[in-house]
C-alpha cells in the first residue's frame, strides 16, 4: 500500500469532525420541523451516527489491543477511518435530503390520512410524511428498520455491548 499522507490521528480527527458536523446539521434541520414531521426517522439517523461512532471507537481499541507494531496500528486505524467516512457519507447522502425538505412550505395533502391508515394496517408504527413535489407527482420512499438492518449486516464487527446499547 502507498504511504498515507495523513497520520492515523489525523484520520481519527477527521472522523470525529465529520460526526460532529453531521450531528450539527441534523439538529439544524430538525429544530424547526413541524410537529407532524417523522420523529422516529430522525431519531433513527441519530442512532445510526452514534452506532458508527461507537463502531469506529471500538475498532480503534481492538486494533491497538491486537497490534504489535505502530505500523500495524496506523494501517488498521486508517482503514477503519476510511470505512467510517464512507458510512457517514452514505448516511448523509441517503437520508439527509428528506430532512432538508422538512422546513419547506408543507401543504397537508388530502390523501395523507388515507395513506397513513393503509400504512398503519401493515405496521402500527409507520410514520408517513408527504413532501410536495411538482406536477402532481408523488415520490415514495420507504424506510424500514434502518438501524436494525445496519447492525444485522455488521453483526460480526459490532461488539456485544454496543449491539445491546443500540437495540
Amino acid at each position, binding site marked *: 500500500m502507498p504511504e498515507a499522507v495523513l497520520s492515523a490521528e489525523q484520520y481519527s480527527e477527521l472522523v470525529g469532525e465529520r460526526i460532529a458536523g453531521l450531528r450539527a446539521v441534523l439538529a439544524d434541520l430538525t429544530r424547526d420541523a413541524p410537529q407532524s414531521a417523522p420523529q422516529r426517522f430522525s431519531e433513527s439517523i441519530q442512532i445510526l451516527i452514534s452506532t458508527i461512532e461507537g463502531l469506529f471507537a471500538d475498532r480503534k481499541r481492538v486494533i491497538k489491543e491486537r497490534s504489535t507494531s505502530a505500523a500495524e496500528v496506523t494501517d488498521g486505524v486508517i*482503514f477503519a477511518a476510511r470505512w467510517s467516512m464512507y*458510512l457517514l457519507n*452514505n448516511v448523509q447522502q441517503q437520508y439527509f435530503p428528506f430532512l432538508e425538505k422538512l422546513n419547506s412550505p408543507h401543504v397537508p395533502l388530502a390523501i395523507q390520512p388515507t395513506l397513513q391508515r393503509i400504512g398503519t394496517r401493515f405496521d402500527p408504527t409507520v410514520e408517513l410524511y408527504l413532501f410536495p413535489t411538482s406536477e402532481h407527482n408523488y*415520490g*415514495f420512499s420507504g*424506510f424500514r428498520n434502518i438501524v436494525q438492518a*445496519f447492525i444485522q449486516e*455488521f453483526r*460480526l464487527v459490532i461488539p456485544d455491548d454496543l449491539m445491546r446499547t443500540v437495540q
Partner: protein
Amino acid sequence: MIKSTNRQVFSENLKMAMLADEIASSLRYISRRKQLAEHDQRIIDKAMELLSEMRRGMEAAKSRKLEESLEASLAYGQAIQAIQLMPRTLASTRSFGDLVDSFNGQLKSLRAAGSFDVKDVCEFFTAVREVAMAGSSPQPESVRVRGVDQESGA
C-alpha cells in the same frame, strides 16, 4: 407517478471490505496468541463461509449462471483481483479451487487448534479488503459526446 427506492448506508463492497478486514486482523491475532476464544470460532466460520461463496461464484461463472448468485459472483470477482495482488501465491497456484482448498485446510487446522500458521489466509483477506474497499469508492461520472474531442470537452 409513484417511485420507490431502497436506500442503505452500506454497499456489498463495503460490507465485504469490513468483513475481510475483521477476518484478516482476527486471524493474525489468533496466530500470535496461539489460542482460540468463542469469537474466534465465529470469525473462522465466517472466513470459511466467504471462501465457499467465492467458490460458488467461480462455479456460477463457469456455468454462465451469474444471475443466480450475484453476491457469490461479486465475491469471486474480488477474490480473483485479490490474488493478482499476491504475486507469490499467484505464481504457485494451479487453480482457484486449489487455492480455496488450501485456505480451507489452514482454517480447519486452526479451528482444531492444530496449526496456527494462517499467514496465507491473512494475506488473502487483506488483499480482498483492499479490492473491496477500492470497489466502494464512488466512480466519477463521465459523459462522452459524439463528435467532441475528450480534451476539449472539459
